[in-house]
């Protein structure tokens, strides 16, 4: 039996993305190693979600490369080793169980194995009793847990999470975080955007801070939260609002946006 080659590390080099003539991701360069849990932080519009979509192959970059263990072609095999959970869960018009079975079918999992595997993962996110319910009538929190279960079921090597607990209450957030931790403990590499600094501290091993499409800081999570080097990252951690216009003085610390 041939050993399946890992798709990691992920190497991103000079990645840019443009929409309507505006550059929204600017020369992103970074490397993500297997087993890390990278929290992508930044204000709204910083380009966090775009960066995830570019890495996951949902968007085509204007410039730069995304390389999965040296493979820049984004082959079917590379895709099959990844999963993504979106901020707003997308549920197919079928039961909770069938939503997971569908993902497994696309992964080429044998029909006989699909139901058991889907049900097992549903139980792990606490939705076993809702297996036969139409997915779209579940509550928002349940749908997000189902989206986590769907991603979990395909046993991804890399899991992208785009603000998976945005708009969820603390209980549902806790449940999502438990799932993320469990998936990571099974060996998945996590790349996740969040606005919740507490969550980033709880889950992250590494942090990437973005502002206006540019990565301003990448660091070990404990170092970052102890004291980021970048002025804007410091302001972000203080909870200051990063919304001022170019050249206007920064209300909290006198930083000028033209430094960006």
């Amino acid at each position, binding site marked *: 039996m041939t050993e399946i080659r890992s798709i990691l590390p992920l190497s991103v080099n000079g990645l840019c993305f443009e929409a309507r003539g505006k550059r929204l991701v600017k020369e992103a360069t970074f490397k993500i190693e297997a087993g890390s849990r990278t929290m992508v932080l930044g204000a709204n519009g910083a380009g966090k979600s775009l960066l995830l*979509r570019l890495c*996951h*192959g949902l968007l085509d970059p204007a410039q730069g490369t995304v390389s999965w263990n040296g493979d820049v072609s984004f082959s079917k095999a590379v895709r099959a080793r990844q999963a993504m959970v*979106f901020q707003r869960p997308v549920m197919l*018009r079928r039961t909770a169980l069938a939503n997971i079975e569908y993902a497994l079918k696309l*992964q080429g999992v044998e029909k006989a194995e699909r139901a058991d595997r889907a049900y097992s993962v549903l139980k792990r996110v606490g939705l076993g009793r809702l297996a036969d319910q*139409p997915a*779209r009538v579940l509550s928002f929190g349940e749908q997000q847990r189902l989206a986590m279960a769907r991603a979990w079921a395909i046993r991804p090597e890399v899991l992208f999470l785009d603000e998976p607990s945005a708009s969820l209450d603390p209980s549902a957030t806790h449940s999502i975080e438990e799932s993320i931790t469990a998936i990571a403990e099974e060996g998945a590499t996590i790349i996740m955007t969040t606005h919740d600094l507490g969550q980033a501290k709880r889950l992250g091993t590494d942090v990437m801070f973005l502002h206006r499409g540019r990565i301003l800081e990448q660091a070990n999570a404990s170092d970052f939260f102890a004291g980021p080097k970048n002025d804007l990252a410091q302001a972000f951690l203080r909870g200051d609002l990063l919304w001022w216009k170019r050249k206007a003085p920064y209300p909290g610390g006198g930083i000028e946006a033209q430094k960006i």
Partner: protein
Amino acid sequence: MDEFASAFQAAFQLIVSLDSNLFEIVSLSLQVSLSAVLIASLIGLPLGAALVLFTFPGKRGLVVMLNALMGLPPVVVGLILYLLLSRSGPLGVLGLLFTPTAMIIAQVILITPIIAALTRQVVQELWSEYREQLMSLGCSPSCAIRTLLWDGRFSLITTVLAGFGRASAEVGAVMIVGGNIDHVTRVMTTAIALEVSKGDLALALGLGIILLSLSLGINATAFLLGEFAKKRIGA
């Protein structure tokens, strides 16, 4: 008024007594329209979905044309098909003129654009919701078409029923290419037109009642399917 009432009474008698002439016409009508709907669905459903998923030069023009073809005048379709199928026409050798097959072809031409255009709208809405998720799961375009058609099945049944409604109510094209030949190509709509011109209102009304019942049945089915879909899959 008396004439109207007696025509109704005679019509009900024809229906209740299962008049063979009446039911022969109804049976042929259903055969022609259902065949046309089946063929048009096999073409229109994937075509409408493909128009959403694939990008190619001239796509917008094709969409505009498809929408315009929804209002295709039946008599014009009938006339063109007549010219093609007539003995001196390019397809005359097939000997299809004045046969139920010619009527099916006419109806397919009329309802395929309806089914394809309405399918495109349904699938477009679903695709904007599903696109990223399906791409993330590694779903190929052909897999996406199958998924979107399946997940949109209840809305698409309404689309197909709309096509059936148009086919079963169509008179101009089938009259021209079918010839309204008794026991051969006479369907409900052409029979109603003929019987009215002959003054046999009972048969015309009997057929009209059945046609209306079919229309009502189609709408009721579409409504019930929609309600069922809401309950069953949260559509």
